[in-house]
């Protein structure tokens, strides 16, 4: 959405932002001050749909200067060093960790911080010599990341195989209890040692990470990929240009039937968003000079050919509930098999529209944009009525077993990622094997990504990223907090009541 001059002064005088947050916000405001119709060639309709709230561009900006998500090839950095930064390949653990911290500083994204900091265990393991002292260094490294990359969309991967480094990382994240980095175990029951997987499941209960991604499924569909940002799966040595989203709840308002929603409203708004995406990508590739000037490209850490783009949705639940209401059914999405049928119809329709659209500069994903189940964000009052991705609104969830079955059936649509998270009570703390049974079942039934957490922890995953509840409460009380994601988490909390998720019994 376009910004105003007023936004500039409001940001400058805010008592709730750190200087760095102000800097970033001012830059973002500047990007959105320009007229997208002038700079990007948006049509009036495209601008109108953003202003009406049916399409949300997540304030990505119109003077585009870098891709939304950048996924560098860190193994190449380890092997070759970096000329631009005058870094040679590391020879010991100290050099490795130091080099990485320097490199991270130069990996941009939509948040200005890196959304992917590498397959940490794979990078670190060859440099382990003395476990006792190396553990201290690894823990210090992880804490450094948390205090300098102040945005928990920053994501690290481990697995699928167990390593000493992986075990040390799991131990460290439990001791640190930091929101950043976000972390995923790329889980494959055929490759991941069950004991390691259980350790990861136990850690996830305590500190809400690592989550588990379906390594087999993503590898089959995308080939070489990494898990980045919230839970996105994106091509290695590449990334994603842009991610706008449809607010399906908003889109459904005013329709009087499923037929109207499927055959008129959805095609209209989807085509509009696709056209918008084409324009954004065109500008980024042809005009922004990012790919011409970035050392990340010239030294081969990323390649333009490995980029894709993401077509996001939120509010599937609200769209379904709207139709159920129109059809006078006393049922709600989450506990209605008829509601599930409606949801599938909506998703199949969107999928067909998106797959039939010839995307530009996305050769890596068969010239198509990829569907994405997007997490909520507090950018407009419309976000109060658009539950993240395909999820069941907080408070409407059925019991855990039914919920797990219900949610998993929609993961298949979202090739660039979606995820679900479930709260467990304290009885599971000593029973990681029970959690792993559930995770194995989830993977077998088509889950792409699953997180578990304890209801009583301070640290939880809020619709795809991590914050401390105590920090979020400070935002609510009007205090300045360290992390951007804490601010976002509080907003999401007010919208989606995410701190009141159902305990599973």
């Amino acid at each position: 959405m376009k910004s105003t001059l007023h936004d500039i002064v409001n940001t400058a005088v805010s008592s709730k932002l750190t200087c760095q947050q102000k800097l970033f916000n001012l830059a973002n405001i500047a990007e959105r001050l320009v007229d997208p119709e002038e700079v990007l060639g948006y049509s009036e309709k495209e601008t109108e749909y953003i202003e009406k709230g049916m399409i949300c561009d997540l304030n990505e900006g119109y003077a585009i200067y870098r891709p939304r998500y950048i996924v560098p090839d860190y193994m190449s950095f380890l092997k070759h060093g970096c000329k631009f930064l005058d870094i040679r390949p590391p020879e010991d653990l100290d050099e490795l960790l130091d080099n990485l911290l320097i490199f991270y500083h130069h990996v941009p994204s939509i948040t200005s911080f890196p959304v992917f900091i590498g397959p940490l265990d794979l990078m670190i393991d060859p440099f382990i010599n003395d476990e006792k002292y190396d553990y201290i260094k690894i823990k210090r490294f992880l804490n450094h990341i948390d205090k300098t990359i102040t945005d928990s969309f920053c994501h690290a991967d481990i697995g699928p195989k167990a390593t000493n480094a992986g075990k040390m990382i799991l131990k460290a994240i439990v001791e640190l209890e930091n929101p950043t980095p976000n972390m995923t175990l790329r889980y494959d029951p055929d490759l991941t040692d069950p004991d390691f997987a259980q350790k990861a499941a136990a850690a996830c209960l305590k500190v809400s990470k690592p989550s588990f991604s379906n390594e087999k499924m993503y590898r089959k569909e995308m080939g070489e990929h990494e898990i980045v940002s919230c839970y996105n799966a994106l091509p290695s040595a590449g990334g994603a240009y842009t991610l706008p989203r449809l607010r399906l709840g908003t889109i459904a308002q005013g329709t009087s039937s499923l037929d109207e929603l499927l055959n008129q409203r959805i095609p209209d708004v989807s085509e509009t968003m696709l056209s918008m995406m084409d324009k954004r990508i065109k500008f980024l590739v042809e005009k922004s000079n990012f790919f011409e000037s970035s050392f990340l490209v010239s030294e081969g850490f990323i390649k333009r050919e490995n980029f894709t783009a993401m077509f996001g949705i939120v509010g599937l639940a609200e769209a379904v509930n709207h139709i159920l209401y129109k059809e006078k059914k006393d049922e709600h999405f989450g506990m209605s098999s008829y509601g599930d049928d409606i949801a599938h119809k909506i998703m199949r329709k969107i999928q067909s529209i998106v797959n039939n659209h010839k995307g530009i500069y996305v050769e890596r994903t068969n010239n198509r944009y990829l569907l994405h189940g997007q997490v909520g964000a507090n950018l407009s009052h419309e976000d109060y009525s658009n539950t993240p991705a395909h999820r069941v609104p907080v408070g409407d969830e059925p019991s855990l077993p039914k919920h797990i079955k219900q949610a998993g059936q929609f993961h298949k649509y979202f090739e660039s990622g979606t995820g679900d998270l479930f709260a467990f009570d304290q009885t599971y703390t000593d029973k990681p094997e029970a959690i792993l049974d559930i995770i194995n079942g989830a993977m077998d039934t088509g889950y792409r990504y699953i997180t578990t957490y304890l209801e009583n922890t301070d640290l939880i995953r809020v619709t795809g990223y991590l914050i401390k509840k105590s920090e979020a409460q400070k935002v609510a009380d009007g205090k300045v907090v360290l992390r951007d994601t804490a601010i976002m988490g509080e907003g999401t909390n007010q919208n989606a009541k995410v701190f009141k998720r159902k305990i599973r019994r």
Partner: protein
Amino acid sequence: MQKYSKEKSDADCKAIVNKIIPFSNVDGPGNRLVVFFQGCNARCIYCHNPETMGYCQRCFKCIEVCPQKALSCLNGKVEHNESLCISCDACIRVCPHHASPRTKIMGVDELYEEIKAYSPYIRGVTVSGGEPLLNYNFVIKLFKKIKRESGLSCFVDTNGFFDKREMDKLIEITDKFMLDIKSVDKVRELCGIESKDSIDNLKYLLKQDKVFEVRTVIVDEMDAEATVSKVAFLLKDYQDVNYKLIRVHTTGLNESRKERIKHKIPNNEKMEQIRALALEKGAKKVECIL
């Protein structure tokens, strides 16, 4: 004293199910689906789910007290409307027969369909209750079906008061048992029955490597030390078997039962002494549940 069900054909074989918990981590290893059968041959004073003990005698007292009108009389039986039920437990509290109107009569196939729906997420099935072995023929048929059609393990959670001569087929098909050993000398006082079979049954099942876990509820002024010593001694040759020592509590008890228990709750020091005794007598994996 309840009699065991006679052999029935598959189609006729039905059982009264009190509840199904699709995901449990406390009823055997891993994540398991647990079936709680109605009916028990014991009347333990500390039972925390006494509404599983008896069978409906059709006195209809529960119908009058349901605030949601979820209960009604149909064909001389109590009918429970699940969609109206808010699980307030008013019906259970008023029942004079330790029963519940929220039970369901199920056949083997029907119960298996429920299990199948959750099978990707569970490691196995545990039957409990009440006392599941009152329905041993049903359980045999159910386990046979589970093993034929899936790789799920089949566990039995039992009070140990059964005649092992009648249980050959069941023991054979069951993967593991979780067994209560309530007492060696005070069975009548604690459980309201005469049976002393449970220690013999434990020995028998141990020899067949069919015991996953033994539990004893620790109550002051009973024979906790004697019972724990006996069990721990038997377990010294079976070091993989878990022995859980569970402190008695009053949650879920009605007022008269609470009165009988509340002064017999062992303190932490006592529990630690009992645990030390179990280890001394030879058990290895001893856990106190406080």
